[in-house]
């Protein structure tokens, strides 16, 4: 004889499934990271200073131009097949979820790890398709490597392919608070909801003078 579950059991299971489906993304915050979803940097480090060429061909002083803003600094390259476009696209989508005032308090700076191919025009086209407010920086290999070394990040590393080459680079975003401190690292895998959560926390902090 077939054991029958009561009808209510089926309904409970269905409701459990539905409730799980509507749970917010990434609601399991790791308590070791504090209130943030990204990885805290301990101790926070000062904003690195450098000047490179932006996507409009103009000189861009990173420290001066981002002073007072929550700043996201990411090293990648436009021919990146996966991490770079997904990372930046998710950041753009997260910023779209924020209010215009919040949005104005954030600056996203993308520095190419492939300056040989990422000309200002290339950066303008590629970043413009993601978010035209994003800043793209390029320059000589050595100038970019100076910045990477200052941030204790791997230097430009080209891996030859059958056709062309790939560029190995760190996949995380360095997140600076409004006071210029490097506070968080957001690795690849951070989701849009996490970005909005952390950016709002940082925007809400008082700027110490």
């Amino acid at each position, binding site marked *: 004889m077939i054991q029958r579950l009561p009808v209510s059991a089926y309904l409970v299971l269905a409701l459990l499934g539905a409730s799980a489906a509507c749970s917010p993304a990434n609601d399991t915050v790791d308590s070791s990271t504090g209130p943030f979803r990204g990885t805290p940097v301990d101790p926070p480090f000062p904003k690195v200073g450098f000047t490179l060429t932006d996507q409009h061909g103009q000189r861009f002083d990173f420290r001066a131009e981002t002073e007072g803003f929550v700043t996201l600094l990411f090293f990648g390259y436009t021919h990146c097949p996966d991490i770079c476009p997904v990372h930046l696209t998710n950041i753009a989508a997260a910023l779209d*979820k924020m209010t215009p005032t919040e949005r104005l308090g954030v600056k996203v700076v993308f520095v190419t790890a492939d300056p040989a191919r990422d000309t200002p025009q290339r950066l303008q086209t590629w970043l413009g398709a993601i978010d035209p407010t994003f800043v793209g920086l390029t320059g000589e290999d050595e100038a970019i490597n100076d910045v990477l070394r200052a941030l204790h990040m791997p230097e430009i590393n080209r891996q030859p392919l059958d056709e062309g080459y790939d560029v190995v680079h760190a996949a995380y975003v360095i997140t600076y608070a409004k006071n210029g401190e490097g506070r968080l690292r957001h690795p*690849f895998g951070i989701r*849009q909801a996490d970005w909005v959560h952390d950016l709002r926390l940082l925007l809400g902090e008082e700027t110490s003078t």
Partner: protein
Amino acid sequence: MTWWCVARSEPWNWTWQAYPGAWIFVAVVAAWYVAMVRRSDTPPPNRLFVVAALVALWVASDWPIGALGAGYLVSAHTLQYLLYAMVAPPLLMLAIPPASWRSPAWPSLLRFVTRPIPALLIFTLIVFLTHVPTVVDRLMQAQLGSFAIDMAWFVSGLIVWWPALAADPDAAHLSPPLRIGYLFLVSMIPGGPAVFMTFAEYPIYELYELAPRVTSLSAGQDQQLGGLMMKIAGFFIVLLAMSLIFIRWQRVETSEADEMAIPAFDPPR
């Protein structure tokens, strides 16, 4: 070798890839149908039904739809659901020879789960569970998990369409109006997950949110498209079935009324 479509962290590539598991699956379904037809004394209904069902299963399982749905696009994953649960099962049932419905080979468990209320509950449970973000994000990372979700859709689709389309003479029949009402309830079930997918503030599936982009759609837009497909396309498929049942019912009613009609009164000459 990758037997079944599974999530990959690689950028999408339009180069054809072989998934032998998809071919084996379709071949098994085809072989089962052929064996059933051979055991049957009656010729099968229009063979186009089974051909269309097999094509639907193949498209859902194989590259590119299977691969896109397994790890890149929610909309492709939803298309798989529609093909597995809403297209192939009714077509297969329409292709089953009439005499086969009385076959002793159908297990008693099958006859139980294909009654209207258990069928609705099972389908609801499967649809909801297979759209839970944690379930999708984890199962789609493994071939067996991806296969399990696809088969859950297919089997639950067979179960839920049974009360409306089966010609099993020994089963508790629903009258045509009740079949139509039953299918209306079926059309409502995907609405739950579809609403979440369409109106969620953020992408709900980590797998698809972090997948390399294939189209110009953002992860959120792709998810909304999947939700709309699930609700609207699924509804129209069921609506088509409801309409066909209604039309057939009306034809039967009309022909029965004609048989019982009193001959026209001939006035005296």
